Structure formats: C-alpha cells, structure tokens
C-alpha cells in the first residue's frame, strides 16, 4: 500500500483551479520529488498531504485513510514539515525548537534531551555547542539544519519538504543536499520533496513527478527523466 495517495484530486481557491485531476502515489521509503515552475501547485500538494488544506474534489489518502477522516492534530504530528523560511520559534533556543513535537506528545524530558542531542549531531551541529543557541545567532544553513532536525524529532514516518534549500547559497545548498541523502540513508524515511531546481531533483529524488499547471505530466526515476521528451521536461532539462 502506498504511504500517500492522491486520487483524482482537484483543488480550487478564490475561483482559481490550482490542481486538477491530480493522481500520484508515494511508496514507503522513497524520496518523491515534485518538480515544477512557480504556481504549478507543488506546495498545495504538500499541504493537501498533511491536512493543512483539503481537496475540492477527490481524496488524499495517508496510510490508506482519507485526510478528512484523520484526526487533524494526529495527522500533522505524524508528518514532519520543513519549509524554506524554516519558521523556527525565535523565542525558543535550538533545543526547545527541535524538541517541540516530542514535548507536545508528552515524551519524558530525558528522552527528549537524548533525541535532540542525537539529531543535532546527525545534522552536523555538535549538541554541546548548539543546544542553547538562539535562532537569530545561526546562519541560514544552520537554521535549516535545525529545521530538519525538528521535523525528524518525533520520528514521523513521512517528511514533507517545501523548497527547503531555496534561500541558501549554492555551496551551503550542496552541503545540505548531501546531508539530506545521508539522513535518508540512516533514517529510512519517506519524503515528498518540492523544488523548482532540476539539478536538485535529479540529485535527491528516487522518483521525479513533473507538475505542469496543476497536473502530473510525467513520473519517472532520475535516469529516465533525463531522456524525457515532453515540452516541460525538455524546458527543465535545458537548465541542467
């Protein structure tokens, strides 16, 4: 059973159709990249997955159950979410930021501390040095690493990434992409990764779904994608 499934999904807002006849499945353990131009509906698809939005038509299934039937809070805590602006709480230090969902879930303090330290080390930021730092003291890249650690904290099976490295410089972006691949290997999570960068898509994805004006044009692995013939695919590949 796919971990996430979009069945004939359409999404309208303010009279505009963002997604139409959108069909997609995401298998456990894979990194599915949603590639497309700005406005192609990629971020909307992410928000339909964790119940921040609901489809106008069709349904989105997570672990076989429609997002409408899930308890909305449980669904969100079941899914990690990383956005471009990171959105760390400015009034919490790094440790409190990362430990947020475990704390909401009622883990005991000792377990939370252990998990936070473990994750900090995993994202390449030694816990002893970074635990008590404030977000404003961190660089963009460091903040996003904390964002990823936060998404992983409660050990959700599914992670959503919304152009997480878009605001970083190319050198830092590459470092974080490498980090992502390591984490994927170590934690064996399922990820849906949104980007408009075709290089990133090829580097990170186990499959790439190309979105054009709210529908999926093709879905294929990176190798096949580079041989694609479709107009939009060619346009993206020309940027390589």
């Amino acid at each position: 059973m796919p971990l996430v499934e979009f069945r004939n999904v359409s999404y309208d807002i303010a009279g505009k159709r963002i997604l139409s006849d959108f069909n997609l499945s995401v298998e456990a353990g894979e990194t599915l990249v949603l590639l497309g131009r700005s406005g192609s509906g990629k971020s909307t698809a992410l928000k339909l997955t964790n119940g921040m939005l609901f489809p106008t038509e069709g349904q989105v299934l997570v672990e076989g159950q429609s997002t409408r039937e899930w308890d909305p809070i449980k669904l969100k805590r079941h899914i990690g979410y990383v956005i471009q602006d990171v959105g760390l709480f400015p009034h919490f230090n790094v440790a409190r930021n990362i430990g947020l969902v475990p704390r909401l879930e009622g883990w005991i303090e000792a377990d939370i501390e252990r998990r936070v330290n473990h994750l900090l080390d995993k994202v390449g930021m030694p816990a002893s040095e970074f635990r008590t730092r404030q977000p404003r003291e961190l660089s963009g890249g460091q903040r996003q690493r904390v964002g990823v650690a936060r998404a992983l904290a409660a050990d959700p099976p599914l992670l959503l990434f919304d152009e997480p490295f878009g605001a970083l410089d190319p050198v830092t972006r590459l470092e974080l992409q490498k980090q992502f691949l390591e984490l994927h290997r170590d934690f064996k999570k399922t990820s849906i990764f949104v980007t408009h960068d075709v290089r990133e898509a090829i580097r990170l994805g186990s499959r790439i779904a190309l979105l054009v004006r709210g529908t999926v044009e093709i879905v294929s692995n990176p190798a096949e994608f580079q041989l694609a013939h479709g107009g939009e695919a060619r346009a993206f590949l020309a940027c390589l």
Partner: protein
Amino acid sequence: MRSDLTNDIIRLTGEHLSLVGISMALAILLGVPLGIVVARHPASRRWLLGLSSIVQTIPSLALFGFLIPIPFIGGIGTRTVIIALVLYALLPILRNTFVGILSVDPAVCDSAIAMGMTDGQLLRQVQLPLAARTIIAGIRVATVTTIGTATIAAAIGGGGLGVFIFRGVASVDTAQILAGAIPAAAIALLADGGLGWLERRLSPA
C-alpha cells in the same frame, strides 16, 4: 480644622491610583481576549474595532455625562468613572493585541500548525509570547491616557487628583491645581517608564 494639604494629596493620590488600577485591570481582562477573538475571526474585526473607535471619539466628560442616567451601571461616583475609563482603555489594548498576534511571522505560525499544535497551544506558546511586546505597548498607552482622563472623575464625585484641579480652577488657586496636576503627571511618567522597561525586556528575537 481642614486636613493638611499633604494628607489630602496622599488620600486623593490613593483614590486616583485605585481608579486607574481597577480600570486598567478590567480593560486588560476584557481587551486582550477580545483582541484574540478579533485576530481569529476577521468577520468580527469591523464591528468590534468600530465600536471601540466610536467610544474613543466621545469626549471624556461627555461619556461620563451619558453614563450617569443609565440605571445599574450609571449614577454618580466611582463605578460610573471606572466603566467610562474601561471603555476608553479598550481600544488601544484590543487593537495592539490583534495587531501583535497578526504580526507574528507567518512562517512561524505555519510551522507551528504543521507540527500539530492545537489552536490553544499556538496561542499560548507562540502567538501571545511573540505579541507580548506589542500588547504591553498598547497597555502602556492606555494606562498613561487613563491616568489623565481619571482627573475628570472629580466632576462626577469619583474622587482622585482631579478634585484639586477642579477646586483650583473654581477658586483660581494655582497651588491647588498643581497639587493635582503634579502627582498625576508623576504617576503617568512612572507608568510610562515602568511599562516601557517591561516592553523592552520582552523583546524576543
């Protein structure tokens, strides 16, 4: 014999502080929750904000005058004064609360919601702490204004430092006027300074 001027100053200052203290406490208890409601329900924004804006435009003595004939809440004395002062203090507190909440970085709110925080958790752990500085600023403005407006309480038997001022005007006695104006100004400065310090201390990122 008439009591000492100093005793009078102490007594009337006490009355004034009590009027301001009670009014501000009630205004905060009313204004902050209402501000949260307005932030959550855009539909309520127009009429709640509109209502308190209208109250603000009524000249203070006129508002006291309007309230006097109303049964239960009206009449002469401190109760009417407090109701009028609360009505005046509401707008800055309400407005700053809802502006403060809406000014929280949307990325922070989005993350919080996406991580599965309930509305209550979002409010208590994220929005209110980050809006605190703006809310205190609103309370500061409201407090300083209330200290001044409370001097009019004397016209309707509410006591306070205004008694000196009205007496002094009636008898063209500068000393009386100053006996009322100086303590009132001093209290206002202290409140402004104290709450300003609190505001700065609450500055997060």
